[in-house]
């Protein structure tokens, strides 16, 4: 059995006449934490959406778990936390537990809830330490707590591959470090393969096993050490500040 979880070959995508991805080839192997970095507008989010089947590429092939994306039906094996996941309707009535339970929806058989589903939800809430918050409305939580809820939701899905798009953009640096430590722990203990999109290389460099740098084309793919040793970042970001947190409040 192949160890490749995601295989992308010569992928081309454009919005109208505007090319966003140009001939991208990338492989993510089982158990890896791949950090996908690049400046704003470099096509990182687009690449994730293409992998998820939310956008259809003009050219190229994608395989998930060895199966071509078009024929891939086991969507529950892939978990996704989208960019700006905190950006929901302020008044939306949802408790923490209700949102974590959503992770089980793609796994339900004939729509029936079983004890195994309840157990998965409990495990996910324990893993990110939010059991105490279960009855709280999501709108009353801090940015860091909300992000834990969204992570618990995706963990309750019991995915083998986790795609995270700028998961820490709304939380402060101390909570951010804790969040990445949690991801590393999930990777060690559960063998979860993680593809993490970030524009903030400093925050993720210690946690990832591989770094891919994208700016419409794939410019680099290697270990974090190789990446830091090269002059690539200087070239890609051209002296721009690397860390640009986008807080929802400012």
């Amino acid at each position, binding site marked *: 059995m192949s160890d490749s979880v995601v295989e992308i070959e010569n992928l081309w995508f454009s919005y109208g006449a505007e090319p966003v991805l140009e001939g991208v080839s990338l492989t993510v192997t089982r158990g890896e934490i791949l950090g996908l970095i690049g400046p704003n507008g470099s096509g990182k989010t687009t690449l994730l959406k293409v992998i998820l089947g939310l956008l259809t590429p003009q050219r190229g092939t994608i395989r998930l778990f060895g199966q071509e994306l078009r024929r891939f039906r086991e969507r*529950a094996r892939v978990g996704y936390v989208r960019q700006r996941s905190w950006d929901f309707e302020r*008044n939306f*009535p949802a408790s923490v537990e209700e949102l974590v339970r*959503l992770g089980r*929806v793609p796994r*339900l058989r004939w729509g029936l809830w079983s004890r195994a589903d309840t157990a998965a939800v409990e495990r996910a809430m324990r893993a990110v330490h939010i059991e105490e918050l279960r009855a709280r*409305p999501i709108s009353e939580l801090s940015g860091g707590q909300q992000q834990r809820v969204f992570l618990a939701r995706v963990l309750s899905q019991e995915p083998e591959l986790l795609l995270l798009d700028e998961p820490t953009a709304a939380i402060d640096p101390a909570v951010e470090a804790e969040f990445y430590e949690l991801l590393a722990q999930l990777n060690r203990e559960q063998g979860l393969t993680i593809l993490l999109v970030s524009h903030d290389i400093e925050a993720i460099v210690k946690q990832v096993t591989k770094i891919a740098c994208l700016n419409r084309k794939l410019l680099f793919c290697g270990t974090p050490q190789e990446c830091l040793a090269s002059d690539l970042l200087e070239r890609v970001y051209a002296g721009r500040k690397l860390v640009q947190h986008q807080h929802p409040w400012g």
Partner: protein
Amino acid sequence: MFEIFEFEFMRLAFVGGTIIGVLAPTIGIFLVLRRYGLIGDGLGHIAFGGVAFGQLVRADPTLMALSYSALAALGIERLRAKGRLGGDVAIAIFLSSGLALGLVLARLARRSTDQLWGYLFGSVIALQPSDIVQIALIAFCVIGTLFVVRRELFFITFDEETARASGIRVGFYNILLVLLAALTVVSAIQIVGLLLISALLVLPVAASLQIARSFRQALFTAIGCSLVSVYGGLIGSYYLDTQPGPTIVLTALLVFVLASAVRLVWRPSPLAPLP
């Protein structure tokens, strides 16, 4: 106090009101959270075009109203899903054009529009036992379907993109929801009137959103607020000698104001920092 129940029409009004009072907020909560709050009004007016068209081609008006509204509901959803227009704009386009088409067709059919309006605007105190059976059957179908797909609809309502990425057939559930809305609205306006159904789809849900701390709580609170409005309005209209539909709507408004007041006193703003 109980003399009100001595009248057959009042007993039927309470039974019919209870059914609509449960049905409307159950589907309304999904519509309101998806910013489809005006869909009741929109589909009601569109149904008018359907009835007029039915008269023109001499087809069953109810069936035509339902088909016409269902097609419009699909059109509204398609415009919204394409992402070029918000749900409210899509509803406005179909509302005005559906109504205009109805009026033009009625003129072409040489029919009086008074007759059309009369057909569409039922009243909760003019219910017949057969109306109760009809609306009960529709409520059973709509609530039953919503119960089966509640988790998927809740997921899509909270975060459509993530639901789609998880393999949920978002397009199918969105279409199902607007078709259920069309079925509910078209059936209910003939029985209890457009004003009552469009108000009960929205006002009790808006009240419950002021105080609910979970989706389940929001749903049951909305049903509670809706029933309180229906019963309060019916009793009020009997003793004040006012029209039952508008009295129920005003009671629902009062419930909303009370819920907002409760929120101010009891629950902190969601934007307030945590202690």
